[in-house]
């Protein structure tokens, strides 16, 4: 740790002459003020548009001449800025990287341009059935006004409301050495990494306090369903699930294994049923969206419109089966040996290792988290999986959202009796 409170993690990986630099900052989308959702993301984006010394075009060019570019963005639980650079270009790139974090200019013209770009991106997201389904599902799942109900990068309305003052004030209150961990992975020593960090960031003095707001209130505790109309849709984009559990949770490992059996792998139940047995879809999966607060538990697929009702019934059957019968040893070991085995495959690159370390920082996972990961997976039993399904998959609270053709969907969905059905269409505006 530097004297100013910034943490530094150096992981030497001597395979190829490259280094990944990553700063993870406790500046989160959950801290976006109400009505200005998307501020954390916009702040991260505008940050890389110029420093006191260089404007955005010049800065971009400086990075790219070094063969690299700076990526920056905010999610629910952190802001991450990162780049991968050849070892020979590290010193120069590191110096630019630190200037971006410590002396961003936030010029008004850049705020305005990027805000307009985000608004264009909004139109593209809702043109796209998958993006529309994901966002509609969150909006349906969480109580109005809770942060998780709004898109992570904001809506058209909220992004339009963001001003330069909002951006600078978000930076002032959320970015600081004590809120930042610098991670360096690749062809360098611990001493080299520490020296670089001290030289570039040692004199950075600021303080910030992250605001913690409850973001995960559920909209309701009983079943409900919604059709979001997309006329002439070639498929139904289907989302089934409910508010899940926070990332740091005593049953994290049983839940991960249970989900792998239910829908986390190609060979898991939901995919084998919907794709391989019925041919309803190109793919079906389930996941827990892990966040500091309770993110969604989602079963996600896109099915031929005509079989939407059947596909939902099959999903409900798989949920019931998961909760009512203990899985076989064979099915358990498929999930656990997969999760154990792919562990080194997931961390082949400096960027993947840096992201895994950032994950540890974001969720304050114990120092030995990755060392004990495989043992923790291996110790999950069939009984644990049944208990996890019983406690963390709740059929009485299931929420269903379908983006598709309302003419084809309304009667099959009513017939399923999956709670009150609402339809959002053009007249909702």
């Amino acid at each position, binding site marked *: 740790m530097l004297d100013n409170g910034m943490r530094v993690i150096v992981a030497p990986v001597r395979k190829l002459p*490259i280094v990944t630099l990553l700063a993870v900052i406790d500046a989160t989308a959950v801290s976006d003020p109400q009505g200005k959702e998307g501020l954390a993301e916009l702040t991260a984006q505008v940050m890389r548009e110029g420093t006191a010394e260089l404007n955005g075009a010049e800065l971009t060019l400086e990075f790219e001449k070094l063969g690299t570019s700076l990526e920056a963005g905010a999610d629910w639980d952190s802001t991450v800025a990162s780049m991968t650079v050849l070892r020979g270009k590290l010193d120069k790139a590191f110096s630019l990287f630190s200037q971006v974090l410590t002396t961003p200019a936030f010029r008004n013209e850049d705020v305005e341009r990027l805000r307009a770009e985000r608004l264009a991106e909004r139109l593209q997201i809702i043109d796209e059935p998958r993006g529309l389904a994901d966002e509609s599902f969150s909006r349906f799942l969480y109580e109005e006004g809770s942060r998780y109900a709004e898109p992570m990068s904001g809506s058209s309305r909220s992004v339009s409301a963001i001003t330069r003052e909002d951006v600078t004030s978000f930076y002032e209150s959320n970015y600081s050495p004590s809120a930042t961990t610098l991670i360096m992975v690749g062809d360098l020593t611990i001493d080299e990494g520490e020296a670089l960090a001290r030289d570039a960031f040692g004199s950075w003095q600021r303080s910030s306090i992250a605001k913690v707001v409850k973001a995960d209130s559920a909209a309701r505790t009983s079943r409900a369903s919604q059709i979001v109309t997309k006329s002439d849709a070639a498929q139904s984009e289907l989302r089934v699930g409910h508010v899940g559990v926070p990332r740091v949770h005593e049953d994290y490992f049983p839940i991960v294994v249970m989900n792998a059996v239910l829908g986390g792998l190609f060979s898991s139940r939901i995919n084998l049923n919907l794709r391989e047995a019925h041919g309803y879809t190109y793919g079906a999966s389930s996941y827990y969206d892990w966040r500091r607060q309770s993110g969604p538990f989602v079963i996600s697929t*896109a099915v031929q419109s005509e079989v939407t009702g059947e596909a939902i019934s099959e999903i409900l059957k798989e949920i019931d089966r998961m909760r009512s019968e203990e899985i076989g040893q064979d099915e358990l070991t498929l999930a656990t040996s997969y999760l154990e085995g792919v562990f080194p495959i997931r961390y082949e690159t400096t960027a993947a290792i840096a992201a895994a370390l950032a994950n540890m920082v974001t969720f304050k996972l114990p120092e030995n988290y990755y060392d004990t990961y495989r043992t923790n997976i291996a110790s999950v039993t069939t009984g644990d999986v049944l208990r996890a399904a019983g406690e963390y998959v709740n059929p009485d609270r299931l929420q269903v959202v379908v983006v598709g053709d309302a003419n084809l969907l309304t009667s099959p969905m009513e017939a399923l009796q999956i709670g009150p059905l609402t339809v959002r269409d053009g007249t909702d505006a």
Partner: protein
Amino acid sequence: MRIPVEKFRLDNGLLVMLSQDKTAPIVAVNLWYHVGSANERIGRTGFAHLFEHMLFQGSENVEANEHFELVQRAGGTLNGSTWLERTNYFETVPSNQLALALWLEADRMGALLPAMTQKKLDTQRDVVKNERRWSVDNQPYGTCWEKLQELTYPESHPFHHSLIGSMEDLSEASLEDVAQFFRTYYTPDNAVLSVAGDFEIDEARMLVEKYFGPIPKGQGIPPLKKMDLPPTFGGPLRNVVQDDVSLARVYMAFRSPTFGSNEYYAASVTGAILGMRRGSRLYRSLVRDRQTAADATAFTFDLAKGADILVIDVTARPEISADQIEQEVTREVDLLQQDGVSEAEVERAVALIQTDILTAMQTASERADRLSMFATLLGDADLVNEQADLYAAVTAERVNAFVRKRLGPENRATLIYVPRDRSEADDESSAREAASA
């Protein structure tokens, strides 16, 4: 940075590449068959890809979907993919599972057909039709690849039709087609096998000989139709498509030298100068300065036979019409053609490409895939180690020679996506936003 490459060929014609790297206890197995959508016959578009799905439906010795299960149970990842010129299958597994991955690939190369049934074909046909709906029909601009290929390759050319195929042709595919395609193309002499990562050379060699050695050689591959094309389209080409999108988009494609040729590297660098990252010409000019575009990229398709295409892809800002964005792109291309590029632009592009080449080589799967690619398409796996130098040798002079020859009006194919005329456009777009926002 050079990776080791050891090559040998089995008597049945299978070409094998081994590349050892013991830094992580994993190994990648990668098999390229030299067959893709270009090999499909008329009336069977999409078949090469449908066939790829069938390769996961079991064999004489493996149950349907057991291939997936065995590899995942071993702690590995796997998949397959189809492209115009090739189909590949790949696994990355813990080092001690090398034999399993090699056996599974050899098993389906040798003994696929006994497991094929009408029911499996029908189910996978439905899966692929849903893949088409998902990735093409229900996606904004989803038809762009099939429309670009239709526009830039003449109707008689094997690259004219799309890889996903038409619904009608998918419906027609029969079990007899499966058998015939398998016997013709899925033979050891039409494949390249690469193994990269942590393994012992002698053991890998022994396993490859044991599992793949007994598979008989094929009967020879029917020649592709004529692939060669003149260096330019010979006049402007144009297609305008109405789609359910909010933002207009322009694709501008140029007929371009084949992947791996000397001139290809100039074409590839031109793509990077125009549209790789935010410092590129199109991004800087249209997104940052003029603010007429929401996004801008450019890239080559990397086809190794006959002719490749270099493609510009620019999405308009909401207030910019299709006509306007087309003019914007045309102006940039005209400027490039008139004034050429500077040495500094080449250096920026090459620096980015070289970092990408090096970072890609971190993973065993990427090393194996590139070995297979260079061996299959260019007949020389060692080219994997030459790429950084081949890019470093590109000069502004070479780029400008390419630009002068290939970016003129007679070699531009423009595909334009226009937001569908919605009679109550404003109401609908605000309603759509309300549904999600």
